[in-house]
């Protein structure tokens, strides 16, 4: 993989060589100091791996990440806690809370009354996993998915938590998971970005999402997530301006590329190479993107599978269907965000609305991939950035309540791509507050995803400003218990 300093230092033609040689032996010595790697033997770290070659045999080739932004409540959907019903209205014991820091929204709350789930739970599939009644479709595919009930994170507010999940760091600026995989594996289809992002929103007040969550950070900008919109222009500024035909666009690109190559020879900045490649890809995307967005070749049965919403561009269901189309075309990482789960109040109403938005389409996606023989190689991930508290936010009202952010435990599910199907991993205590078995930290989750793609998360690194960075920062263990 590219070592910009080395390439820059080696970028020397006769003239520059002679002129720098004339400065004398001192500058040559300096030159060798600038290229410390020049005489270094082959070592066994990742940098000697050729592009796209993983550390070990991968199980997954593609990801579809159904990110539920705003954090769905695990207590209503995945984590059945009958004890909460018995202890309804009682105070959350301090010994359980154990000094957990609170958000600004409940930190001045004097009492923390426990509140049970408004929705019923029942067991499904051969695995007998408990699922909330609001997920009738997910219940049907329960034997194809792996529910992790013991996720935990470090962040307590939305933006840092999403950043943490996507980039491995609460502070902005690191590359997103999709960018890392694009960097490691490249694209299967060079007519589409390796990393695509699809957004949809539910009703109500919605926390915004920053586009840096799918940013490339310090990686080449070619690894940036490309946001495909649902309107007339799926990718902004991709179309030729009026009066420009394909031919002249082609000519223009060739001229720009030759100019850029001159610059590249002179300065050796890798961003210039990335820019040339991006122009080329954008040109090819002028045909490939309208094609993938044109659903006219999709049979009606697809729409029935994904639900009525899938007919309406820009909905979560339509995005799921689009995600399947993109992954058929070899897009490596498809990141969906369904925004607005954040239920500080009116949780029952909101959860009903949002599960209606996503349940059928999420399950349909898994089923569809399975039917098409793609699930083995496509990893589907469903989950939010943290969980929700087992006590109610604001006053205690059994019928209409809210739950605050809860980083100590929450649930996500994964399917396909080498994940063990039909299991439930991890366990929380009877009050659904702390994890008592097999905790999975966000970095563990990220390490596991990378390992499914054949990467050792400790070795997929990028050196930037003198430090080696990785997605999992300085921690993370592969969760072997969920690997098939």
């Amino acid at each position, binding site marked *: 993989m590219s070592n910009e300093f080395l390439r820059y230092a080696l970028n020397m033609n006769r003239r520059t060589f002679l002129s720098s040689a004339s400065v004398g032996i001192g500058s040559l010595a300096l030159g060798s100091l600038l290229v410390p790697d020049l005489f270094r033997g082959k070592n066994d770290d990742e940098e000697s791996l050729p592009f796209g070659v993983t550390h070990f045999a991968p199980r997954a080739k593609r990801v579809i990440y159904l990110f539920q932004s705003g954090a769905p409540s695990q207590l209503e959907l995945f984590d059945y806690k009958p004890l909460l019903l018995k202890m309804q209205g009682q105070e959350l014991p301090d010994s359980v809370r154990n000094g957990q820091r609170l958000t600004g929204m409940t930190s001045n709350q004097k009492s923390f009354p426990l509140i049970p789930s408004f929705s019923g739970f029942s067991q499904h599939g051969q695995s007998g996993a408990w699922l909330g009644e609001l997920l009738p479709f997910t219940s049907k595919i329960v034997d194809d998915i792996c529910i992790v009930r013991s996720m935990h994170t470090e962040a307590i507010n939305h933006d840092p938590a999403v950043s943490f999940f996507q980039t491995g760091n609460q502070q902005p600026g690191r590359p997103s998971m999709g960018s890392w995989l694009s960097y490691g594996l490249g694209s299967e289809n060079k007519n589409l970005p390796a990393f695509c992002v699809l957004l949809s929103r539910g009703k109500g007040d919605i926390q915004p999402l920053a586009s840096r969550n799918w940013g490339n950070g310090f990686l080449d900008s070619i690894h940036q997530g490309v946001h495909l919109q649902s309107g007339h222009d799926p990718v902004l500024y991709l179309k030729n301006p009026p009066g420009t035909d394909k031919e002249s666009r082609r000519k223009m690109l060739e001229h720009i590329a030759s100019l850029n190559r001159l610059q590249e020879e002179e300065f050796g900045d890798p961003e210039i190479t990335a820019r040339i490649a991006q122009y*080329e890809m954008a040109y090819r995307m002028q045909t490939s993107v309208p094609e993938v967005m044109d659903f006219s070749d999709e049979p009606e049965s697809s729409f029935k599978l994904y639900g009525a919403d899938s007919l309406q561009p820009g909905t979560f269901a339509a995005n799921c269907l689009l995600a399947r189309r993109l992954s058929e075309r070899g897009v490596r990482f498809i990141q969906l965000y369904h925004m607005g789960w954040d239920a500080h109040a009116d949780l029952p109403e909101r959860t009903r609305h949002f599960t209606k938005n996503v349940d059928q389409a999420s399950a349909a996606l898994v089923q569809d991939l399975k039917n098409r023989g793609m699930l083995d190689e496509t990893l589907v991930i469903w989950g939010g950035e943290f969980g929700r508290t087992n006590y109610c936010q604001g006053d205690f009202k059994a019928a209409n309540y809210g739950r605050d952010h809860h980083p100590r435990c929450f649930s996500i599910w994964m399917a396909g791509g080498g994940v063990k199907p039909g299991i439930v991993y991890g366990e929380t205590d009877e009050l659904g507050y702390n994890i008592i078995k097999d905790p999975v930290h966000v970095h563990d989750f990220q390490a596991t995803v990378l390992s499914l793609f054949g990467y050792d998360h400790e070795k997929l690194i990028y050196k930037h400003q003198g430090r080696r960075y990785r997605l999992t920062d300085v921690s993370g263990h592969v969760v072997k218990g969920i690997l098939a």
Partner: protein
Amino acid sequence: MFRLRQITLNFVYFLNVLLIFLLIFEDGVQLPVFLQVTGRMHPLLLHFPLVLIFVGISLEYLITKKNFRHPAIAKIISYVFYSFALTASLSALFGFFLYKEGSYLGEEINLHKWMGTAVSLLAVLILWLRERPVVFFYYGTLAVSTICLVLAGHLGSEVTHGKGFLTEPIEKQQKIIEIENADSAIVFRDVIQPILNEKCLNCHNANRAKSDLILTDYQSIMKGGKNGDAIVAGKAKESLLYKYILLPMNDSLHMPPKEKLQLDKEEIKLIGWWINTGAVAHQKYVNLPKVDSIQTIMVSKFHPKTGLDLLEITFADQQEIKDLNTPYRTVQQISATKPYIAVFLGSKKDFSVKDLTELKDVGNQVVSIDIGNSKVKDDDLKSLRQFPHVQKLHLQNNAIGDEGVKHLKDLHFLDVLNLSGTKISAKSLDEISGWQNLKKLYLYNTTVSQESVKALKKSRPGLDVYNTQFDLTDTVYNAQLTIPVVKIDSSFFHERASVEVKLSRGKVKYYYTLDGSEPTPSVNQYVEPFHVDQSGELKIIATMDGWIDSEVATFPLLRVGLKPDRVILETKPHPKFSARLDSTLVDGKPGSLDRGDKEYLGFFNRDCQVLFELEKPKKLSQLTLSFLEDLGLGVLSPEHLEVWGGEDKNNLAQLGRFVCDQPSNKRPAAKGIIKINFPPQYVRFVRLRAKNPGQLPASLKLKKDTKASIFIDEVSLE
């Protein structure tokens, strides 16, 4: 200066004599503790003679050149060699002290000792020869010393870092795990010893047995160290080796020492399990009692060679692979450890057989091919023969029939075959059922019937066949179309408003009305954006065959007519919902579905009464009112509206009256519009009274303290 050299020379003599003396009486020597410190300075000191002798030799060579013949250089050389002799003797002596600490054993350390001594003695000889005219002997001695010194250094590195330290990186790469299968692994040889080799051997080898414990082989391990038995067969908890591993990190007895590479959880588990099973030397894993947690570790440790691996296919050239990549074809080696290659040609619009035949140079390495959705034809599949090792073949959604499937029969390694969406029939299944390696077959969206699949499953029990779908007759299935999404540039408009429906995919049709009646497929069908120039209510519905009609979407459209010169609020709105008071009603700005967005006047438990005043009497015939309904918050439609008008403020006649329907069931928040027509007449004053229903319908089941309210957005006169 001469004096200094003389002193140095004498000191070096003394050191060497001392060294010889100590060596002779080696066994009798008891090392005082303070000398142990000097002993540990050996690794520091030993680098000086190494460097100095090379500097000395280089200078000796230089001085034979004409340009460097200078007395000063000769002097420097002499200093260099004196320093060399001094440091060499000191290193040797300190080395001896370190050796006497006793943590080093074995062949190498002995050799190292004698080499070191030799260097020390040779150094004296060099000093002596330098002063005499025996150039040949002098150079000879220099050469011998250098060789001895390098050898001693190398031996020293093997003593501290272990045998084969120098060549380790090269050998490591050649090392291949011979055992492929957990069952055939001999637990001690293939699992336990490798762990010890990696994590413990640095300090517990034959050369450097700390605490007299050697862990290089089974016998030595069982012998234990000076603290007792390292292993008590069958009792891990009594085995010191295991006990020390489990001690907390900051315990000084914890092994491996804090700063060294630690054992991971699984390794500890394996060692404990091995001891508990009796710590036998030559037992195969398969013969030991199975424990689930160990089984998973063991299986993950060994990668059985099966199928393709046995063929030992060679790696393809990386450059060659790279050259085969085009924007439309991806060819990638799957992992660094195996030579296999995956090819992706999915969704290629202009697929031709050449895309495959061009890959013949990597034909042996290709194990996965995806040419789904690429308009592949039966004949194209002939070219797959050049990939004899293909395991995964994705052919979905191509116009392939039974003829094409026949071309695949020579692909003996085929493991996964995706024929979803192809034209194959049950005939192919007979062919396919003979392919013994096939494990997964995808037949979704083909004409193959359930019965044929059942028959195939029966004849090939190990084969997974996928052809199921969601059962669409299910009751939970969501078949109601989504409520239409409509873009209206301005719902309060002066001239006209443009209406655009965000179209769905598929064959969804939209029907709308503008007069408030319910839309049905017999009314206006939406085809393209249109304009509205009258106040009214746009109602729109989405329909499609086989689907349930969507809910009706309602949008008020209000044409802003005459602007009154004064607006007088005769009843006061709630202070929290009073927006910009009087001007709110005629500002031409539509409010959203949020009652708090400062576009509404909210009246709780009271009516809304407003007087509009015009400078000059105008001919009016209509009043339009736009309001909000949000039943969840107790925001209702007005019970009825009354419009009064006339020339005199104090003497107004009722012009019109409108009674609104009150909903009985909960429904989502919406905006409403009411039009009141009356006979055209000239008026200066218009009074509007919107009656607050006062009572909340019991069917809404709202909280007790919720008050009935009405929220008025805009009023327009025409």
